[in-house]
């Protein structure tokens, strides 16, 4: 008897237990390789699925697991998708459209003076973001993140979305009544959507998708990461926006959530952040060799310990690094401009390669030190696929993110001072000079070999060993 009571007591405690939610309400965008790392010791299905994740979904963002995560993730990504579209007028349209749904709120019985506070909070944010886009101050993404990390603002907007979802379900009760217990839509909405502390469920997700996301011209997918058989997360599309004629919109912004049982986070493809060029003044193009010509003699330091020249020789190693040669993929980052201009929120991890990541390099994804490399890589990616008679099988380097300093180069040559010059890694200079149409990333460009005056760098034993006392060498 006493035992039963004790058990009942423990059961009660366990039922009431809620782990303390930590972390920001909405986190910074980071490399989704962190998810792979998180599951490195999990069971094989999770390991396989999370290992495949970064190749398709380069970034993710956490949401605090406080029971609101799904609501918050959708509300946040809705605004973020509008920011990504980058059209200030769209924000005004959205405000008008959302306002026009207030008659649904009224007919669902929500008092106007109560919900208007939450609506105004959402509209304020729309206006502020639109203003930021008009000012071209590049602060919109930061502003959004900041606002959603304010508990009051974030709760207001989420509550507004909840009421819209509830009103939508109630006004379309014919469609929803078969998905709620006893077909009692009103009760279901009050207990599972309007309740202040309820996790989002599928009915509410469909409602938000139909009421808010699809009409805004935004796509919406949820990736389910669970123990079901398979090698990748299961993708469920919720919104595929169409135009007036019912044709799918070309390249709509897409909201992507990652669902792990009981929790939602936000996922992104690398291409989601192709920066909207209209806000960025185009850098005047400067002849690049001028920038490269200066100061090389003294500054060449035979770089980083992780440069292994042998790995640059195809076929030298049977697995791993050697694989980086043949599969050249352009599709994962169509962005014409480097990442660095997106927002000051650093670090943004580099875009992953299509090849499954090697765990030992994960730290490098997340380390701020390497943030500059990423900008560098993206520049490389825009390089057109040059194929030249001289080196046909060696297209310019593309899949090289795994070890940032290792191989930013196009062919099986030993490191040249022109690529490994230390100033390169800092990233300040080169976004500017490498934009020429033909010879961007010029020092990588094998087209130089077509130049009759081309003088390849030559190895000379005399200079090779003179670096230690180059002052003396130069003076001679």
């Amino acid at each position, binding site marked *: 008897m006493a035992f039963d009571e004790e058990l009942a007591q423990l059961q009660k405690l366990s039922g009431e237990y809620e782990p303390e939610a930590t972390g920001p309400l909405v986190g910074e965008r980071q490399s989704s390789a962190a998810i792979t790392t998180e599951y490195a010791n999990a069971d094989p299905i999770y390991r396989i699925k999370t290992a495949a994740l970064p190749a398709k979904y380069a970034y993710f963002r956490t949401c605090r697991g406080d029971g609101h995560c799904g609501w918050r993730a959708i509300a946040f990504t809705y605004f973020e998708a509008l920011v990504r579209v980058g059209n200030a007028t769209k924000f005004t349209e959205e405000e008008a459209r959302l306002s026009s749904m207030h008659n649904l709120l009224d007919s669902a019985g*929500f008092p106007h003076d109560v919900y208007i*506070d939450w609506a105004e909070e959402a509209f304020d944010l729309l206006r502020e973001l639109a203003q930021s886009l008009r000012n071209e101050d590049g602060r919109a993404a930061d502003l959004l993140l900041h606002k959603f990390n*304010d508990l009051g603002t974030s*709760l207001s907007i989420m509550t507004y979305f909840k009421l819209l979802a509830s009103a939508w379900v109630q006004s379309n009760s014919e469609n929803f009544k078969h998905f709620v217990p006893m077909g009692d839509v009103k009760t279901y909405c009050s207990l599972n959507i309007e309740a202040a502390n309820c996790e989002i469920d599928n009915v509410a997700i469909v409602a938000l998708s139909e009421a808010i996301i699809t009409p805004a011209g935004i796509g919406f997918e949820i990736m389910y990461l669970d123990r079901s058989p398979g090698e990748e997360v299961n993708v469920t599309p919720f919104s595929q926006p169409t135009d007036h004629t019912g044709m799918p919109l070309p390249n709509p912004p897409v909201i992507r959530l990652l669902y792990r049982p009981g929790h939602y986070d936000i996922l992104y493809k690398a291409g989601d952040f192709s920066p909207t060029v209209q806000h960025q003044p185009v850098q005047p193009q400067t002849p690049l060799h001028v920038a490269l010509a200066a100061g090389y003699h003294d500054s060449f330091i035979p770089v980083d310990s992780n440069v292994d020249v042998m790995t640059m020789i195809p076929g030298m190693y049977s697995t791993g690094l050697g694989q980086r040669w043949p599969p050249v993929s352009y599709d994962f980052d169509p962005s014409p401009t480097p990442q660095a201009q997106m927002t000051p929120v650093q670090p943004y991890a580099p875009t992953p390669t299509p090849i499954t990541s090697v765990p030992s390099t994960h730290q490098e994804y997340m380390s701020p030190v390497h943030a500059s490399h990423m900008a560098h890589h993206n520049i490389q990616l825009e390089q057109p696929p040059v194929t030249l008679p001289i080196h046909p099988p060696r297209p310019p380097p593309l899949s090289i993110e795994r070890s940032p300093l290792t191989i930013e180069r196009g062919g099986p040559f030993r490191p040249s001072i022109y690529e490994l010059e230390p100033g390169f890694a800092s990233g300040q200079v080169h976004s500017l000079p490498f934009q020429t149409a033909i010879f961007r990333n010029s020092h990588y460009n094998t087209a130089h070999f077509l130049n009759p005056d081309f003088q390849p760098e030559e190895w000379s034993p005399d200079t090779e060993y003179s670096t230690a006392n180059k002052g003396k060498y130069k003076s001679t």
Partner: protein
Amino acid sequence: MALSTGTRANGGAATVAQRLQKELMDIMTHPTPGITAFPDDENMTRWTATIDGPANTPYASLVFKLSMEFGATYPYAPPTVLFKTPIYHPNVDMSGRICLDILKDKWSAVFNIGTVLLSLQSLLGEPNNASPLNGQAAELWDKDPAEYQRLVLARHKTPEELDAGGL
């Protein structure tokens, strides 16, 4: 978990005080018969309310006093509501604590003081006898209405008696 404080220029983000101020205005301009509510002091986080017992119930013509306390996360979390008037009811315990789902996990931010008090008023006439705090009351409700009525009246105190008792 404190909400952002400070007023916003364009009227968004009602803080707790602002929201309660608004509710007070609403209650005063559109009073609901059988219900009163007023803040105890300037900071508005504690209120005293009364509800009239609904007609045709054992509570008819009785007045019940309640206390309401609003936390920093109101209206995203429910207020704490207690019966100050001793009441014999299946869903209220001897200290005045109330078992009502909308005051717990089914709370919604659209509820307000008025809806809470109306819900409590209807709870008096329609107790949830399936999950009672007062098992005897739940049993007598159906079995012996006369005895139930007697116990309700025996336990009740008028507001004057309450005040005299130092409450």
